[in-house]
């Protein structure tokens, strides 16, 4: 007896919805096993990971703050992956976006600042991320260099660039030699939604972008073009769609969103540049994109779920002394299961009784 894969004629919508849920359930079971292996009470650990962050107003706000960059980056990545373009350097685009916007805040600090500053910072952030993302796009379309490797290598370059700026030219002169910039003035800070809260204007802005992206993906020719280039490149060529242009467009779009996420994180949450300003949002967003079925609205739901794991991981570290890296293990496992369950959409597993020929 053996298991074989058999192609499905079509996939029902219930299965499409069920597959990510099944992946989450399997990942939770595996996580419980891992927590037990690390010597923690699995139920207490799961509670700290997935229930505590959602059980009070502080936790919920924190989830929204962490979900915002994840959702924003993953929506861009979803367009890339739909088009069969593998941008895995969103982490670098996030950082360069943060640098681009922060440059305005640092340069005008203590000088001429006005209501124009914040929109200009957001625009500079998006532009910085987009330009940085266009490097792998150019190398791909002009020279055929693998965008997977070039976009990833640029992450290290961006990290080092940030490190140099906050230790060198942009360091706060009054900051006791700490590697950080000045704290941004109120004019360069995204306003909070509620006084004393944590959530800033970036979160509703992200929701608007998700809605717009969902519309573009489902209802416009551009969205169709991206899907066709990804799923049937030959047919796309016959239809007159230019695969190179699509590569440029999705790289620029995803880079802009990652850059915007970067500057919103800096201008809204951190209020200064410092090394290690991202806990790996750009990489986790890859998982969000796949868990969200490469669909903007799906990314929204998946982004909230993975934001919970970030805060839950911190909870579990403090309360149960679980290593922080356990969160990454869970995130990696989750992507394994998401991919495995997606196979069930295309194929059915069949048990063959006869001996293989």
């Amino acid at each position, binding site marked *: 007896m053996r298991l074989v894969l058999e192609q499905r004629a079509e996939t029902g919508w219930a299965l499409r919805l069920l597959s990510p849920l099944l992946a989450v359930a399997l990942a939770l079971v595996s996580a419980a096993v891992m927590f037990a292996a690390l010597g923690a009470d699995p139920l207490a650990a799961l509670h700290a990971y997935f229930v505590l962050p959602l059980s009070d107003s502080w936790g919920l706000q924190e989830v929204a703050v962490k979900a915002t960059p994840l959702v924003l980056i993953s929506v861009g990545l979803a367009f890339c992956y739909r088009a069969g373009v593998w941008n895995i350097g969103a982490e670098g685009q996030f950082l360069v976006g943060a640098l681009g916007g922060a440059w305005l805040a640092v340069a005008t600090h203590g000088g001429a600042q006005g209501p124009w500053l914040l929109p200009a910072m957001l625009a500079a952030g998006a532009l910085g991320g987009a330009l940085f993302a266009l490097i792998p796009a150019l190398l791909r379309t002009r020279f055929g260099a693998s965008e997977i490797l070039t976009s990833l290598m640029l992450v290290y370059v961006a990290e080092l660039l940030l490190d140099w700026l906050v230790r060198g030219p942009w360091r706060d002169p009054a900051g006791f030699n700490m590697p950080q910039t000045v704290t941004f003035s109120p004019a360069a800070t995204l306003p909070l939604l509620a006084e004393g809260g944590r959530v800033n204007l970036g979160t509703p802005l992200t929701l608007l972008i998700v809605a717009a992206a969902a519309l573009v993906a489902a209802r416009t020719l551009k969205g169709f073009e991206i899907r066709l280039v990804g799923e049937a490149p030959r047919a796309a060529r016959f239809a007159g769609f230019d695969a190179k242009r699509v590569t440029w467009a999705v790289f620029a779009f995803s880079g802009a969103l990652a850059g915007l996420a970067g500057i919103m994180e800096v201008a809204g949450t951190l209020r200064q540049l410092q090394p290690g300003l991202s806990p790996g949002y750009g990489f986790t967003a890859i998982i969000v994109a796949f868990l969200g079925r490469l669909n903007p609205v799906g990314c929204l739901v998946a982004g909230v779920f993975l934001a919970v794991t970030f805060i839950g991981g911190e909870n579990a570290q403090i309360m149960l002394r679980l290593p922080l*890296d356990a969160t990454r*293990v869970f995130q*990696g496992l989750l*992507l394994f299961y998401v*991919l*495995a369950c997606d196979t069930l959409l295309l194929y059915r597993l069949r048990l063959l009784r006869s001996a293989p020929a």
Partner: protein
Amino acid sequence: MTLLEAILLTVITASTPLLIAAIGELVAERAGVLNLGVEGMMIMGAAAGIAVAITTGSSAAGVAAAILAGMALAAIFALLVLGLATNQVAAGLALAIFGLGLSGVVGAPFVGVPREGIGKIAVPWLSEIPFLGPVLFRQDPFVYASFALVIGVAWFLGRTRAGLVLRACGESAAAAHALGFKVLRIRFLALLFGGACAGLAGAYLSLVLTPFWTSGMTSGRGWIALAIVVFASWLPWRAVAGAYLFGGVTILQLHAQGAGVPVPPQAMAALPYVITILALVLIMRARGGGSAAPAALGTPFVPDR
């Protein structure tokens, strides 16, 4: 020992992990599977290697554990991309993330525990050759292993029937299947070999190069190994050139930093990554757009009974 000899020695130590990991990935890719999770397998090898070496006190046990850890991760990857025909790029990314996380969990109790590195072995007679002797034949066992791996893989892929079958799986899985070869089994073995090499390369980092554990100590070497495979046009001998080029750049930037070159140290540290990008672009230009990649690289194969 002259300065030149000293520099060459450090270049060899910097290049060896890249070469070992690249040669393993090269075999997997020649069989048609793109495993982007080299970084994850490598760092799991580093973590498992040092954890077992410290616990048992035996370096050999550490190396064995590293190889097994790399193979275990490769087996998970194989289950996904071969057993379930998932997207190889996404599964490879998942493996990289998973390996980085798991290595942190495994390595956590061993942070900062110092350990004597594995020593060097002088080959009798050969190490007496002037200049070449001390550089090539007074090395640690991993360097010899990397030489043996390159020679073995070049011979296997180019000169044996089994190597030809493996390459057939990478060029056209359907054709190899039609000829009666077990494509999935061959690809599985190739992946395991790649995992073993990545694990071994990781053990080199944590047992020889910097004999202690720090989280994220591979710092992108797994990804550079992937780039070396492309740079080498999937040929084992050229992988040597690629690995030594990148190892040389790493050492060059360290020496330049030490010599007080008036450039920020971060710019120097970025050099290996920038050179990797440049090398990818130049090699694609030199090929004039044609690809030397195995034709079936990255495409899943589902046998129809």
